[in-house]
C-alpha cells in the first residue's frame, strides 16, 4: 500500500489506463502544458505528448462532442471539464448526443467516453463555480454517474469508468483533491454500480456520496457518543445505484437519511427516498430525512452557511430517531 492524494490518484488512473490502452486519450482546457487546472494531469503531457494529452480552446461543446465522435469510432476519450458549472455549456453534447447514440442508433455505435469534472463549494467562488449537478445527469437515460469520495475509490472507479464501453459522468469534489489515503501498489478497479458501506451501524442508514461521506462519518462519530449507531453507505455510483446494498441496510436499521451537497430538492436523495417508499415502505419505522443545500444559488459570502455538513446530518438523524410510525 502507499499514501496518495486524491488528485494524484486521478492522475495515476488516467496514466495507467493510457499505458494499458493506446486508444485512451485526455482532452480539455489546460490539461496538457499546464497539467490541469487542479493538477490532475501532472506529468502526462511530458509522458504521452500532445497527441494524447490535448489542450483545447475554450469550447466545451465542441471538444466534448468531438470526443464523443472519436469514441464512437473506436477511441476512448477522457474529457476534463474544469468546473462542473462549465458542463452546462456542453449539455447538448452529453444529453442529446452521448447519452442517446447507442440506443438511438439501434446498438450500432457505443460511446466509451468519460467526462470528468469537479463539483461543489469550498473555494468561496460563488454561484457559477460551486454547483453540484449530478442529479441532472442521473435523470438522463444513457449515462452512468459516478462520484468518488476517497483516493482509493477515485482511482478504482475511474479505471472502471475508462474501461466501460458506455458513457460515464465522473464527478470529483474540489475539497477532496488534497485528501490523502492509501491505495494498493498494484492494478485494481472498483465495479460501477456497487455501493460501499463506509461504516457499519444499526440505528440509521445514511445514503450519501462524495464529500458528504466524510461529513456523515464525522456525524457518525459524534452520534455514537449519544448512543446512536449510523450505517454510512457511500453510493459511489449514483446511476445505476445499488438498491440491494441500500435496501439490505434499511432492512437492518429501519431508518433512512440521505445526504448530498447538491440542493435538496430533486436531488438523488429524492430518488432513493421514493424508491424506498415504493418498494420497502414496510421496513421503515420513521419518516425519511433528506440533507442537501438550501434551494438557492450558492453565494460568495454565505458559502459556509450554504454547504451542508456534519451538523446537518446529525440534525436529520436525530429527527428521524425522534419520530416513528
Amino acid at each position, binding site marked *: 500500500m502507499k499514501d496518495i492524494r486524491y488528485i494524484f490518484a486521478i492522475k495515476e488512473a488516467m496514466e495507467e489506463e493510457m499505458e494499458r490502452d493506446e486508444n485512451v486519450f485526455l482532452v480539455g482546457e*489546460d490539461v496538457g502544458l499546464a497539467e490541469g487546472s487542479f493538477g490532475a494531469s501532472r506529468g502526462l503531457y511530458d509522458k504521452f505528448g500532445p497527441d494524447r494529452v490535448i489542450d483545447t*480552446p*475554450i469550447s466545451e461543446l465542441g471538444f466534448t462532442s468531438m470526443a464523443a465522435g472519436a469514441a464512437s469510432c473506436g477511441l476512448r476519450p477522457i474529457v476534463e471539464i474544469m468546473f462542473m458549472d*462549465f458542463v452546462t455549456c456542453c449539455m447538448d453534447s452529453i444529453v442529446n448526443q452521448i447519452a442517446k447514440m447507442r440506443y438511438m442508433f439501434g446498438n450500432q455505435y457505443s460511446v466509451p467516453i468519460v467526462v470528468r469534472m469537479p463539483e461543489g463549494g469550498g473555494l468561496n*467562488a*460563488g454561484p457559477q*463555480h460551486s454547483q453540484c449537478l449530478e442529479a441532472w445527469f442521473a435523470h438522463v437515460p444513457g449515462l452512468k454517474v459516478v462520484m468518488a469520495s476517497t483516493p482509493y475509490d477515485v482511482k478504482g472507479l475511474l479505471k472502471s469508468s475508462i474501461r466501460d464501453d458506455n458513457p460515464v459522468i465522473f464527478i470529483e469534489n474540489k475539497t477532496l483533491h488534497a485528501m490523502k489515503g492509501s491505495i494498493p501498489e498494484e492494478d485494481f478497479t472498483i465495479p460501477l454500480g456497487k455501493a460501499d458501506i463506509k461504516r457499519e451501524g444499526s440505528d440509521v442508514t445514511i445514503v450519501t456520496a462524495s464529500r458528504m461521506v466524510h461529513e456523515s462519518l464525522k456525524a457518525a462519530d459524534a452520534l455514537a457518543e449519544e448512543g446512536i449507531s449510523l450505517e454510512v453507505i457511500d453510493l459511489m455510483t449514483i446511476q445505476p445505484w445499488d438498491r440491494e446494498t441500500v435496501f439490505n441496510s434499511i432492512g437492518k436499521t429501519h431508518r433512512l437519511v440521505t445526504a448530498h451537497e447538491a440542493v435538496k430538492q430533486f436531488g438523488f436523495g429524492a430518488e432513493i427516498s421514493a424508491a424506498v417508499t415504493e418498494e420497502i415502505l414496510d421496513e421503515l419505522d420513521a419518516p425519511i430525512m433528506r440533507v442537501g443545500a438550501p434551494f438557492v444559488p450558492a453565494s460568495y459570502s454565505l458559502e459556509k452557511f450554504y454547504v451542508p455538513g456534519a451538523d446537518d446530518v446529525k440534525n436529520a438523524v436525530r429527527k428521524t430517531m425522534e419520530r416513528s410510525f
Partner: protein
Amino acid sequence: MSKPGRKKLIEFYTRMVRIRKTEEKLMEVFSNGEILGFLHVSIGQEAAPVGICAHLSDLDYIATTHRGHGHAIAKGIDLKYAMAELFGKKEGFCMGRSGSMHLADKKHGIMGANGIVGGGIPIATGAAFAARYKKTDQVAVATFGEGATGEGAFHEALNFAAIKKLPIVYVCENNGWAEFSPQSIHMPIKDVISRATAYNMPAVQVSNDVLEIYEAAGKAIDHARAGKGPTLLEVKCDRWHGHYVGDAQKYRGKDAVEKAMGKDCLLNFEVTLLTDKVLQKKDIEKIGAQVQAEIDEAVDFARECSFPDPSEMMDGLYI
C-alpha cells in the same frame, strides 16, 4: 472625432490610476484573506476600459468578464459599494452574493462580470437588442479575452448582431493568455479581428494606448448609435500578473512576465501627459494621493459593513 481636451485627458488618466491602484489594493487585501474566492486583476490593461467607457453614458450597457474591475470602475461604479461587494458585505451592489467575479451595478449599466467565459457576450447583445426594440439610442459593449472567442457564444452573438445590425461594440482585450495557455494553443490565427470577416462586420485593431483606443471606440460607438451595426475592436495588450492572484505562473517564464510588465499603458500615458505639459509631476502626485485616499476610504467603508445574515440567504428568490 475631436481630440480629447485637457480636462478629458486628466479624467482618463485619473480613471486609469483609479483602476491600477484599486487592483493593487485588492491584491493586498486578497493576500491577507480579507476577500475570498477568485480574484482576477487587469493590471496592465487599464487603457481599454477607460478609452471605451469615455464614450458611454450611464444608460449604455456593458457586460464584462471575470477580469472586470477595470470596466466597472471606468463605467463609474461607486468604489465604496463595489469594495463592500468585493468584501462580501450586504451593503455591496449584489448584497455580498457576487464578490469580484459577478460584480454588477444596474444604475451604471454594468450588467455583470461573468464566471462563464463568453457568457457576457450574448447578454450584451441582448441589451443591444432591447435598445433597438425600444428605439432608444443606447449602445451596448461586450468585453472579453481572446480565449473567449473559442466559445460558440461569441460566434453566435456576433452573427446575430451582424444580421440585425444591433448597436453593440465587441471589445476583445487580447492579452495573449487564456488561463495557463498562450494564444497559439487556442487560435490558428494571429488576430482576433480576422474572425469578424465571417460576420461581415467591421473590425479594428489597436494597441494598448488609451488615446488610440478612445478614438477607435468613439467611431465604433457612433457607428452603433447611428444604427449601422456592430464593430469588433481588438486591443492588443499584455497580462502582467497570473491568471488569478496566487497563480505562480510556472507555465510562463520570468522573462516573459518582465517583458509584459515592461509595457505599461499607464506609465506611457503619464509620460505623454508630462511631455505635452498637460500635467506636471506635482499634479501626478496629487492625483495619485487623491485616488489612494478614495480607495482607502472605500476599503475602510467595506471593512465596517456587515456580512449578510444567513437568514437572508433566501431573500429575493422568487420560488
